[in-house]
């Protein structure tokens, strides 16, 4: 039997704000437990929420980035349930009227593109953390994370394989960092996916019963968990079993999924509009202001790179793979470096060197201004591309001037025609046999002669110039 897989994803992105969504407590990670549990985070009697403007701005930026409608009027609701890491006994979220409406995100699958529809995105507060293993039979509650702003981004069930799920997650991960609303740190849980998986017989219209895999915080886990879950569901159905709608956890150690015990009972969240928070009204003017302050989106930048700068699809993807690479590229261009050379240098030399030393491009010891200086020396023919690689290695993490290194290594090209001609004549004289070979139709000899000239010039001749002069001489 052939099966189709249907996947929808809900992603909790932690928004990059200084303070919590409804209070002035810090959102810093890694502090002592409860150091950022302020009066509001602790849900003391009488405290009230006040909405953080930056959280709203982040939601607007996201809405604009996925071409969604920003709700002029949205409502905060209470989702009621008891849990020790949920201090108020309810989570403030958005239910009926979310801040961001329908939009879409296009993912690349090899050469093909697929559009994943975004159903909605809403603002909500994060819960705290339960810490285990302190004392037998007990848990500790740390409320530092309680009240951290989240944007929950919900897709339609538009993905049909683990690969597509991962491609979507990666694309979204890249986008939220690009627009500066999330730092993307997955280890710290700042970007976590709940993946809804169901299967149905091929051609069947009706969706199967879904199970929701909670809190996946790495792309690898998404892949593993979905693959495992799909097999599990298909096997179960083929054995004549049924699927029960449920919430499940993925165990990375065993590679298996299991039902969450705490969610066994049917939940009744009793959503209702939070009387402590008024309707959030967003003006077109505010949206326009935020729009005008936003960078171009990766998709916009990519098409510009292809159309205006003639980059290949592949190279353009490379440059727009994340905001830091794009920013490095933009900075190179600000020094009037050609886009093609800038792209080549980033995607080859810079990337391989960064990979070797496992450094993020943001922290590259070689700054864009210095790399630009080097590339400009290639463009003005002071040095050859090969020579530039030597300079690159030299200046990588050293505080030396590009021109000084060129001088020091004696890499400056000979541009004086007479000087090059002298060397050329000498080489032709010493290699008459090769000249004959060329004249008898062996093209390979031509390159060999260039090599001889370059060697004789100790690499300082300009290969293009040598080639031209040689051609002239041999056709005389």
């Amino acid at each position, binding site marked *: 039997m052939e099966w189709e897989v249907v996947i929808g994803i809900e992603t909790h992105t932690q928004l990059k704000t200084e303070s919590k969504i409804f209070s002035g407590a810090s959102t810093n990670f890694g502090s002592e437990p409860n150091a950022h549990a302020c009066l509001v985070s602790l849900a003391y009697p009488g405290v*009230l929420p006040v909405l953080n403007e930056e959280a709203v701005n982040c939601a607007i930026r996201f809405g604009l980035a996925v071409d969604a409608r920003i709700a002029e009027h949205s409502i905060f609701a209470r989702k009621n349930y008891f849990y020790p890491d949920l201090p*108020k006994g309810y989570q403030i979220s958005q239910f009926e009227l979310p801040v961001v409406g329908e939009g879409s995100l296009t993912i690349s699958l090899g050469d093909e593109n697929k559009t994943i529809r975004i159903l909605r995105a809403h603002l909500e507060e994060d819960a705290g953390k339960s810490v285990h293993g302190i004392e037998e039979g007990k848990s500790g509650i740390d409320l530092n994370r309680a009240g951290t702003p989240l944007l929950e981004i919900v897709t339609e069930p538009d993905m049909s394989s683990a690969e597509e799920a991962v491609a979507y997650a990666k694309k979204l991960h890249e986008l939220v960092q690009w627009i500066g609303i999330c730092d993307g740190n997955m280890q710290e849980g700042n970007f976590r996916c709940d993946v809804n998986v169901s299967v149905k017989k091929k051609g069947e219209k009706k969706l199967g019963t879904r199970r929701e895999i909670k809190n996946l915080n790495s792309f690898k886990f998404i892949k593993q968990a979905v693959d495992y879950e799909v097999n599990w569901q298909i096997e179960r159905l083929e054995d004549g079993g049924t699927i029960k709608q449920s919430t499940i956890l993925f165990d990375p150690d065993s590679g298996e999924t299991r039902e969450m015990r705490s969610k066994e009972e049917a939940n*009744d969240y009793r959503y209702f509009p939070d*009387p402590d928070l008024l309707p959030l009204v967003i003006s077109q003017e505010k949206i326009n202001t935020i729009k005008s302050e936003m960078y171009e989106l990766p998709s916009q930048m990519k098409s510009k790179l292809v159309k205006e700068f003639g980059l290949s699809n592949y190279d353009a993807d490379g440059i727009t793979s994340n905001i830091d690479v794009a920013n490095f590229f933009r900075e190179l261009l600000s020094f009037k470096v050609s886009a093609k050379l800038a792209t080549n240098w980033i995607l080859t030399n810079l990337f391989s060197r960064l990979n070797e030393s496992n450094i993020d491009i943001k922290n590259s010891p070689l700054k864009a201004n210095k790399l630009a200086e080097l590339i400009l020396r290639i463009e003005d023919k002071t040095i050859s591309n090969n020579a530039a690689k030597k300079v690159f290695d030299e200046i990588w993490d050293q505080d030396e001037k590009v021109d000084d290194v060129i001088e020091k290594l004696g890499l400056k090209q000979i541009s004086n025609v007479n000087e090059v001609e002298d060397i050329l004549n000498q080489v032709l004289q010493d290699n008459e046999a090769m000249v004959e070979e060329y004249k008898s139709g062996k093209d390979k000899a031509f390159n060999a002669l260039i090599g001889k000239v370059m060697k004789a010039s100790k690499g300082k001749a300009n290969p293009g110039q040598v080639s031209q002069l040689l051609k002239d001489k041999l056709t005389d």
Partner: protein
Amino acid sequence: MINLSLKELSEGLKQKKFSSVELTQFFLNRLDLHNSSINAFITIDKDKSLAMAKHSDEIIKEGNQDYLTGIPIAQKDIFCAEGWKTSCGSKMLDNFIAPYDSTVISKFNAVGAVNLGKTNMDEFAMGSSNETSFYGNVKNPWDIKTVPGGSSGGSAAAVAGRLAPAATATDTGGSIRQPASLCGLTGLKPTYGLVSRYGMIAFASSLDQAGPMCHTAEDCAAMMNVMSGHDPKDSTSIQRAKENYLTGISDPIKGLKIGVPREFFSEGLDPEVEKIIEGGINEYKKLGAEIVEISLPNNHLSIPVYYVIAPAEASSNLSRYDGVRYGYRTKEYDDLMEMYCKTREEGFGEEVKRRIMIGTYVLSAGYYDAYYLKAQKIRRLISEDFKKAFENCDVILGPSAPSVAFPIGEKKEDPLKMYMQDVYTISTNLAGLPGLSMPAGLMNELPVGIQLIGNYFSEAKLLNIANIFQMNTDWHNLSPEEFK
């Protein structure tokens, strides 16, 4: 000192007739003498109050005296006051020493008023007789066999018994006006959003509003000058220029159009109370007001609507009392679920549990539309009734409560009878309008209150109208015999 108005106390302090320490000590002595008989206070902390008084005397000495500087004020135990036990009348918070000041408390502190103590109240402000308090019922100084009303019964009894010159209170469905009525006081529930709710323990967030409880409208105006004002810590706090409620308090009211809703004089109203209200209406006629009959056709729905919306919000607001971070935690439990369920079983009283259950029910799956959403729709109808009414009048007048103070225990076992106490007050909370109750007569030696309901932000007008009444009558000056 016992009969002095806030204005007179302020002048006495200014003229050094007495110091704040002496004044505070005087009222603390009254508490020693009388509190045990009426149980108006949950917490009295003489050292703290006197320390505040001492500080106030410094302020006065430096010449920075404000109207309420140095005057002891009784604070309803619903307001968080840093370092003071703030119990909200509940066992759940019996061990809760507030770690911060509510905005109302901060404002009193800022002008150097003295916190005289925390007054008793119905548990989480749920009740109309002060019989649901974990700290025992409060007794009405006019007849200690009767209730003072609720939920601000402690504040009402404290002021009526002249144990405090003035008190703060809160009103979700009538909790300022009904006890003011039953205890012969002037109490104002302001427009929703005028006084900050920050630090005021929530019962039903969309209805709760704090206000003053005093002998006179003028005292209420002085209290409102301190309590009102925009607070960035409360999203529902209104952004509006601050008013001085004393400025126009004696303006003539000639030509005032008073609307009398016929629905307020139907079945359920004690005929004797009705007579007294009629007397009040006649008094206003004499003062040059015009009386017009109006209609609030949906008023009878305010109780059903209220008993959906208030419990729904309360059920959620009270979920934070789980024994984890503060407050009561049950002594024996095997697991988390048992800890929750026993903590809340033991920490909450019957009425509170009842309302949590009702609130949980009306919000639960399958019932939300029929109950909660329906109630919100009718809430709008009730609110629109007022809008229409105010097209034909400046202020609405009626009874504050259907009866005078009733015997302790009479309605305790019958929630439905108890809920009827708020039949004339609840609709203003649902609409968010200001309402005031003031004494207008005695029935069998027990006070009867008149209610004035104004349009949004008409507090100054309401206080003016009440003040003119009080300048021409004497009901607000009466005191229960044993507390004179």
